């Protein structure tokens, strides 16, 4: 693995000077050694990966070579050989306890800071919604277009995915972006990326989900902003998610209680998204995606102060897609208020 040997000489201080792209030429014929780097975080994750590869090779060779050296030097020459007694030598024990400990703490800090930095999506992220179901990915853009096993995104724009599953646990994985997150039923998980290279990348399901698990794959298309705008316009035949949500809001009678002026049996939803909401049981929760989902599917679990718990559950009546549409509608109510002010 020539690639990895480069990594052995790796110092964190050299990271910026180190051009990973040069390694692409080192791939063996027929075998890639490095996945494509398609996102802002890919390179920094690879730096850590190469450092760890170097460390692994260094210690593996250290142990192998020491064993081989001892094995030859101290091979048994006669059955009568007497061996000297070697006593445990505390400084040596401490050396090989403390050096690995220090290395571990160094790697922990490096990897954790990287992870921590990458764990939160930038505020200005574009939003896309993902629903996993046996055995396909359904992706939904707020503007309306809906895709199956394909995701079109613009380059150089942070994209936040809000994901849920209709059935079992799936895993949303784009190797070229170095991102992965399990997609669970009954809750939202989020993940984000910012693509840096135009192109087409694999989308895999990374959590075993049943018979056609290996068929639950698709492609991510990273497009220029103009192409993306064209694609959105071409794909957007119907209404936006918020429009669909507004229609559902009336269709399911939500509007009879949740009146915009707050005079209904339920609270007004105008400007609600993102606010802190006190509950009867003493908790105070931020109204986010999870909050709204829970309020729709299991309203009794979150009794509001000042309101009687009369809302029926919509579990089983609305599918995940419709819940996301309603959410988009509630979010749009918040946006309206803010723009109105």
């Amino acid at each position, binding site marked *: 693995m020539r690639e990895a040997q480069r990594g052995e000489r790796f110092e964190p201080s050299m990271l910026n000077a180190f051009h990973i792209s040069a390694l692409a030429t080192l791939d063996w014929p027929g*075998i890639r050694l*490095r*996945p494509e780097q398609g996102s802002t975080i890919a390179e*920094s*994750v690879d730096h*850590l*990966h190469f450092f760890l590869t170097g*460390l692994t090779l260094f*210690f*593996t060779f250290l*142990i192998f070579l*020491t*064993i081989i050296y*001892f*094995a030859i030097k*101290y091979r*048994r020459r006669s059955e009568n*050989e*007497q*061996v*000297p*007694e*070697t006593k*445990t030598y505390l400084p040596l*024990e401490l050396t*090989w*306890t403390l050096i*690995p*400990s220090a290395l571990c*703490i160094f*790697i*922990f800090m*490096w*990897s*954790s800071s*990287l*992870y921590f930095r*990458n*764990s939160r999506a930038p505020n200005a992220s574009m939003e896309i919604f993902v629903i996993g179901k046996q055995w396909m990915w359904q992706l939904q853009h707020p503007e309306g277009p809906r895709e199956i096993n394909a995701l079109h995104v613009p380059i150089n724009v942070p994209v936040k995915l809000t994901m849920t599953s209709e*059935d*079992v*646990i799936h895993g949303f*994985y784009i*190797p070229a972006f170095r*991102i*992965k*997150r*399990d997609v*669970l*039923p*009954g*809750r939202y998980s989020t993940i984000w990326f910012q693509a840096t290279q135009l192109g087409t990348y*694999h989308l*895999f399901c*990374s959590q*075993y*989900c*049943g018979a056609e*698990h*290996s068929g639950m794959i698709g492609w991510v298309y990273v497009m220029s902003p103009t192409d993306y705008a064209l694609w959105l316009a071409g794909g957007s035949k119907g209404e936006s998610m918020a429009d669909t949500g507004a229609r559902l809001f009336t269709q399911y009678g939500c509007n009879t209680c949740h009146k915009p002026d707050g005079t209904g049996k339920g609270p007004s939803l105008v400007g609600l998204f993102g606010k802190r909401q006190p509950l009867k049981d003493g908790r105070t929760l931020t109204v986010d995606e999870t909050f709204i989902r829970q309020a729709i599917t299991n309203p009794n679990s979150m009794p509001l102060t000042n309101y009687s718990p009369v809302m029926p559950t919509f579990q089983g009546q609305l599918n995940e897609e419709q819940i996301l549409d309603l959410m988009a509608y509630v979010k749009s109510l918040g946006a309206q208020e803010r723009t109105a002010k």
Partner: protein
Amino acid sequence: MSTAVVEVPARSEVNYLNANYGIRSWLFTKDHKRIALLYLASITFMFFVGGAAAVLMRLHLITPEGTLVQPATYNKLFTIHGVVMVFFFMIPSIPAVLGNFLVPMMIGAKDLAFPRLNLLSWYIYIVGAMFTLYAILAGGVDTGWTFYTPYSSTYSNSHVIATALGVFITGFSSILTGLNFIVTIHKMRAPGLTWFRMPLFLWSIYATSVIFILGTPVIAITIVLVFLERVLHVGIFDPKLGGDPLLFQHLFWFYSHPAVYIMVLPGMGVVSELIACFSRKRIFGYSFVAFSSLAIAVIGFLVWGHHMFVAGQSVYASLIFSLLSFLVAIPSAIKVFNWTATLYKGSISYQAPMLYALGFIGLFTMGGLTGLFLASLATDVHLSGTYFIVAHFHYIMVGGAVMAYMGGIHFWWPKITGRMYPDAWARFAALLIFVGFNLTFFPQFMLGYLGMPRRYATYPAEFQVLNVMSSAGASILAIGYLIPLIYFIWSIRYGPIAGPNPWRAKGLEWETPSPPPPDNFDVTPIVTEEAYNYAGAPPIAAAGGANV
């Protein structure tokens, strides 16, 4: 260890094998040595069941679209492979076979503390294995060995309950075996055998037994909960019934991560014995190696969350589990360095057991170091759920634990049967296993880094070259495992007589005839020295007439 036994006859007139005959004398035996052999036969059978599934999987993966079976069948193959290998081969392997045979002999006792309980453990294992084999024959199970909910509790249409019951039942076998070992080691050591004179094998079996007792009940409870949800529709894990799917993962890994140490700790114990014997040295840093076993057993209970970095646990929980996972790497590193240092100024010879032991150190080192990639949060996000994980844990489980098990079987085979196997064939097989293993699993590190997810019946064409390499390696590995089966069976009848101590090894088990008499020792041995006192051994011992 010098003992009261001065002269050991080459062969005992009455030994545990010829003391009585007939199928009943085996099925109702209370002799720990015979029970060890019952386990040996059962787990060897299960090993080849699980191995056959692996061979079919690797054949299937030679082409991207899959050559052999439908995806649904492939899913059943990897589930069978995982369930059988983890619960019915790896976990009982060293403890139930070598542990059963050696624990009483190494401490100078006649048997384990509870011989009837020991036999019961084997029957429980067999009943569990029957349930799982029934599930396989009835059409298989497709949840993966991890049984993740809600797939296993609601969605899978395969034989989840029969398989899970098999795992549930066999767990009691582990618990009872662990209990037996702990009591035996505490109460039945020969006079003079203090804790710090014990062979390191006993320390590691002791640490393993603690995990058996503390961890196994948790998997039993978890399986009961899956049963309640799947059969009675009590909402526990499925959100549609009001449950929490991550709760299952917490419970499952709370057992199954320590279970990894159940598999590898006994291997570490075996390797300590082999390195000491074939370099004729006391293990360097004896107490460090002993305490690192206990440290691994304790910290191993606190790292389960590293299986869930991308599953949806909080960022802060992930940070803590990451730190603890790095912590558990350190005692393993200490062991590796101490084994290597043991070779220094030794008198090293290279019979088959030693080749396995050295192979263990190298492969375990690689398995351990690649674990750092997965303890690191940023790289784990990319690598989890890919072939990198598969490669990593096979380096630990197969490169580590199975190599140690093979080394141990080769080392104590002359004690168990009184016969030698052909050493040249054994060395050849060890080499074949080493080469085949690396060819199978090293390409999988690369596949995982490139992004190929595990448990895929079909895959994009760009991954084919590495998959073909891996399949080629697997076929070499399969042959490597078949050769010992042949020469071991051959040796029972035709092997040269081994004598009591063909390796000139230290340890009480070598101070009694091979095969040992039914009560192990004619006179209770008295221990007067530390373990591995090779420096104080007489210049040349009677090497029992073996061609070694």
